[in-house]
C-alpha cells in the first residue's frame, strides 16, 4: 500500500498572514497624523467656528417662544427651506437647539463629507499615484498598512471635529445631549463618505477620478435627501446625509441612527479592502483607455493648454452649480405663497425696499451661485500654482513662452470659467423660476442678474492669482478669504464688527439683483479690483524664481 503524503499547510496560517498585511499601521498612523496635523487643526477650527458663530447668532435672534414659533412656521412647510435645511425635526415645539440644527446641520454634514472625501482620497489614491506609497511599501509594512493608517487618521480628524463642534454648541449655551448627538452624527456622515471614497479609489486609477466619483455621490446624496425630505420621507433613507439628520440632535434623539452610518462605513471599507486585494498597485478597476497619438490642431499654445487643464473641473462646477441653481429657481415660486400667511416676513420685506419675496429669494440663490463660482475660481487659480510646483511649468517656460503668456493664459481661462459658472447657475435658476411660475421673462432677468454678480467671484479669483504670483507659499490662504467673504455678513453681525469690515467682502457690493436695482459703479469697481489683483499676480510671477516643490 502506498502512503498518501499530504503536503503540510504552510506554517503561516491565514490569520497571521492577514495580520501581516496590516503590519506597520501604527507607525504609519503616527506619520499620517504628523503630516495632517495642520489640516486637522484647520478643519476643526473652521467647522467649530461655523457652528459656534451660528449658535451664538441664533441665541441672540430668538429669545421668546413667540419668535421661535414664528421661525418654525416660516420654515416647516416651505419646500425651499426644507431643501436647504432638512425636514425640521423638533420644530413642532421649537427650541433654539432645533432651530440651530435646522440652520446648520445639513451644511455641516456636507462639510464633513467633503473632509472625509478629500482626506481619504489623499490617503489612498494620491499616495499611490505619487509613488510615495511605493517607498513606504518597500519597507517592512503590510499591504494595507498605508491606507489603514490614512483612514484611521481621517477617523481621528472627524472625532476631533465632532468633539470641537459639540463643545462649540455647549459653549454657546446649548444642551449637552444634543451636542453629543450632533457630534456623533457628524463623525458618522464623515466616515460613510470616507468609506465611499475608499471604494471609489479602487474603481478609479487617478486621484482626480476618485475625488470626482466620491463628490458625485455626495451631490446625489444631497439631491436624494432634498427630494425625500420634501415629498417622501422614506426616500431620504437612501442618502447618507439623512443618516446624520435622523439622529435628530436637539429634537427627540434617536441613538440607533449612527449604527446605520457605522455599519455602512465598515461595509464600504471592507469592500474597498477586498477590491484592493484583487488589483495591482497603482491600477484601478476602470482600465485606462488609449489616448490620442498626436495633439489636436488647437492644442498649440499655452492658453490652449490652460483651457484643456481647466476644462474637466469647470464642467463639473457648471453642472453642480446649474443643478443647485435650478433647485433655487423651482422653489422660488413657493417663497411667494409663504408670504401670504407670514406677517413677520412681510415686515422683513419692507426692509428690502419693496422687492417681492420671490425676487429676494432669487437674489439669495444667486449669492450662493456666486460663492460657488468663487470656489471654482480659487481652486482653478491654485491649480496654476500646482502646475508650477509639480515642475510642469518648466517645459513651457523653457520654450519661447513668456511668464506673462503662461500665467496670463491661466488667468483668462479661469476668469472665463468663473463667469461661465456664474451665468450657467443663474440661467438654470432663471429657467427653474420660469417653469415653476410660468413666466418666461424670469430666464432673462435672472441670467442678467447672474452676469452682474460675476465680478464678485472674479475678485476672489483675482486675489487667489495675486497670492499665487506674489506669495506662492501662502496661496492656499485664498480659501480663507473665500470663507471670510462668505461669512463676513454674519460674522460682522455676531462680533459687532464695524461696517468697513463687512465691506471687505466683494459680495457686499454687488447689487442684489433682481431684488435690488442695477448700479454701475460698484460693478465697475469690482472689475477694476479683480483686474488689479490679476496684474499684481502677473507682476509677482514675472519677478520671482519659479520654484519646484
Amino acid at each position, binding site marked *: 500500500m502506498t502512503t498518501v503524503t499530504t503536503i503540510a499547510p504552510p506554517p503561516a496560517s491565514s490569520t497571521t498572514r492577514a495580520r501581516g498585511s496590516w503590519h506597520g499601521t501604527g507607525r504609519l498612523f503616527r506619520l499620517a497624523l504628523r503630516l495632517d496635523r495642520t489640516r486637522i487643526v484647520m478643519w476643526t477650527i473652521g467647522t467649530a467656528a461655523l457652528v459656534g458663530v451660528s449658535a451664538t447668532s441664533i441665541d441672540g435672534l430668538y429669545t421668546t417662544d413667540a419668535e421661535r414659533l414664528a421661525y418654525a412656521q416660516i420654515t416647516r412647510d416651505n419646500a425651499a427651506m426644507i431643501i436647504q435645511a432638512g425636514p425640521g425635526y423638533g420644530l413642532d415645539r421649537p427650541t433654539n437647539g432645533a432651530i440651530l440644527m435646522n440652520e446648520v446641520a445639513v451644511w455641516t454634514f456636507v462639510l464633513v463629507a467633503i473632509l472625509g472625501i478629500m482626506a481619504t482620497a489623499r490617503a489612498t489614491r494620491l499616495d499611490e499615484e505619487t509613488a510615495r506609497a511605493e517607498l513606504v511599501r518597500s519597507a517592512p509594512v503590510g499591504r494595507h498598512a498605508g491606507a489603514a493608517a490614512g483612514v484611521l487618521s481621517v477617523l481621528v480628524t472627524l472625532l476631533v471635529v465632532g468633539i470641537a463642534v459639540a463643545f462649540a454648541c455647549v459653549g454657546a449655551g446649548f444642551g449637552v445631549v444634543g451636542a453629543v448627538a450632533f457630534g456623533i452624527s457628524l463623525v458618522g456622515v464623515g466616515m460613510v463618505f470616507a468609506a465611499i471614497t475608499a471604494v471609489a479609489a479602487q474603481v478609479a486609477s487617478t486621484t482626480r477620478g476618485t475625488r470626482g466619483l466620491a463628490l458625485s455621490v455626495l451631490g446625489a446624496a444631497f439631491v436624494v435627501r432634498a427630494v425625500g425630505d420634501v415629498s417622501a420621507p422614506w426616500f431620504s433613507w437612501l442618502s447618507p446625509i439623512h443618516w446624520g439628520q435622523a439622529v435628530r440632535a436637539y429634537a427627540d434623539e434617536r441613538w440607533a441612527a449612527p449604527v446605520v452610518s457605522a455599519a455602512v462605513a465598515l461595509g464600504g471599507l471592507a469592500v474597498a479592502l477586498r477590491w484592493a486585494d484583487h488589483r495591482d498597485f497603482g491600477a484601478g478597476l476602470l482600465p485606462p483607455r488609449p489616448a490620442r497619438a498626436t495633439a489636436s490642431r488647437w492644442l498649440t499654445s499655452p492658453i490652449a493648454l490652460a483651457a484643456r487643464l481647466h476644462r474637466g473641473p469647470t464642467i463639473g462646477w457648471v453642472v453642480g452649480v446649474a443643478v443647485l441653481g435650478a433647485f433655487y429657481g423651482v422653489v422660488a415660486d413657493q417663497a411667494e405663497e409663504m408670504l401670504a400667511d407670514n406677517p413677520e416676513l412681510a415686515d422683513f420685506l419692507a426692509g428690502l425696499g419693496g422687492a417681492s419675496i420671490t425676487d429676494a429669494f432669487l437674489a439669495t440663490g444667486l449669492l450662493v451661485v456666486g460663492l460657488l463660482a468663487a470656489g471654482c475660481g480659487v481652486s482653478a487659480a491654485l491649480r496654476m500654482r500646482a502646475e508650477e510646483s509639480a515642475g510642469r511649468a518648466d517645459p513651457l517656460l523653457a520654450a519661447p*513662452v513668456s511668464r506673462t503668456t503662461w500665467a496670463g493664459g491661466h488667468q483668462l481661462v479661469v476668469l472665463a470659467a468663473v463667469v461661465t459658472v456664474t451665468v450657467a447657475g443663474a440661467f438654470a435658476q432663471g429657467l427653474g423660476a420660469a417653469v415653476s411660475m410660468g413666466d418666461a421673462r424670469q430666464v432673462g432677468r435672472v441670467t442678467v442678474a447672474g452676469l452682474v454678480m460675476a465680478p464678485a467671484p472674479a475678485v476672489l479669483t483675482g486675489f487667489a492669482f495675486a497670492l499665487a504670483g506674489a506669495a506662492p507659499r501662502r496661496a492656499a490662504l485664498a480659501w480663507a478669504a473665500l470663507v471670510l467673504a462668505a461669512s463676513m455678513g454674519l460674522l460682522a453681525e455676531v462680533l459687532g464688527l464695524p461696517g468697513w469690515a463687512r465691506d471687505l467682502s466683494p459680495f457686499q457690493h454687488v447689487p442684489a439683483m433682481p431684488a435690488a436695482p442695477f448700479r454701475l459703479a460698484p460693478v465697475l469697481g469690482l472689475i477694476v479690483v479683480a483686474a488689479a489683483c490679476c496684474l499684481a499676480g502677473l507682476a509677482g510671477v514675472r519677478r520671482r524664481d519659479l520654484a519646484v516643490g
Partner: protein
Amino acid sequence: MDVQEQVIRLRGVRKSFGSTVALDGLDLDVSRGEVHGFLGPNGAGKSVTIRVLLGLLRRDAGEVELLGGDPWRDAVELHRRLAYVPGDVSLWPGLSGGEVIDLLGSLRGGIDRRRRDDLVERFELDPRKKAATYSKGNRQKVALVAALASDAELLLLDEPTSGLDPLMESVFQDCVLEMKAEGRTVLLSSHILAEVEKLCDRVTIIRRGRAVEQGTLAELRRMTRSTYRVETERPVDGLASIDGVAAVHVEGRTTVFEADDAALDAALGAVRAAGVRSLLAQPPTLEELFLRHYGDAAATEADRR
C-alpha cells in the same frame, strides 16, 4: 581661424536659497558646436545652473550670457533657439505622450513631423498612453523626443538619460552625435561616466557651486596622477621624498607608486638609478579621475590654488 564663439558664458555667478548657497561664484564656458559635459556630485548646483540658464531662477550676482543674450531678460527670444530636457520629467497626467510632444513642438514654432515620428520609433515610445500611466523611462523619452525633434541650436540636458535602459541610452548617444555633426551645441549634465567619455569634447566639474576643473578629458587625465609599476635590480631609494609622488608600495623588486606629471622626471631618475627591468604606466580610470574631483581632497586642493 577665428576665436570660437561662446554659446554659454558664466562669470562669478551666485545663487542662494535662504541660507543655502547653491552657486558660489561659478564660471562656465561652452563654445559653439561642442558637447560639454557638466559634472559634479549630488547637490553641487548643476540643476540650479541650468535653471538659471533657462531664466527660471534669477541669479543673485555675476554675469550670465547665453547665445549672446541675458537668460532672465531675453528668455522668450532665447528659448526659440534652445531645447531642454529635465532629469525628472513631470508631465500633464491628462495628456498623452504624443500630445505633449506636439504641444511643446508647436510652442517652439512647429515641429518636423518626419523627424518626430522617426524619433518616436527609434525610442520605441507609445505616444497613445496617458502621461499618468508612463513609466519613468518613458516619461523621460517623451521629453527627449520633444527636445531632439526641435531644430534648436543649443540643447540643455539635465541628466537626460536617468531611467533609460542601455538600449535607449545608446539610441540617445547616437542622437547626440548626430546633433554634434549638425553643428549644434549641447550642455550635458550627467552622472554616467561612460556616456560622458563617449560624447563630451570638454567637461566642467563643479563642487559646492564652484567650477573645480575645466578642460578636455585628456587634459584632466594629465592633471591627475598616473600609477607606475616598475621592476628594478636594486630597491629604489628616495622615491617617497619627491614632491608629487605618493602611495609608494614596495613588494620585493617591484615598486608601485603614483606620480604627477610634473614629478615624473625626478621619479624616473630615482627609478633609473636602481636599474630598470620593466615599467608599466597606467593612466587614471575615469572613475578614479572623478572620485578625486568629487571627494573632499579636491575641495581643499581647489581652495589652495
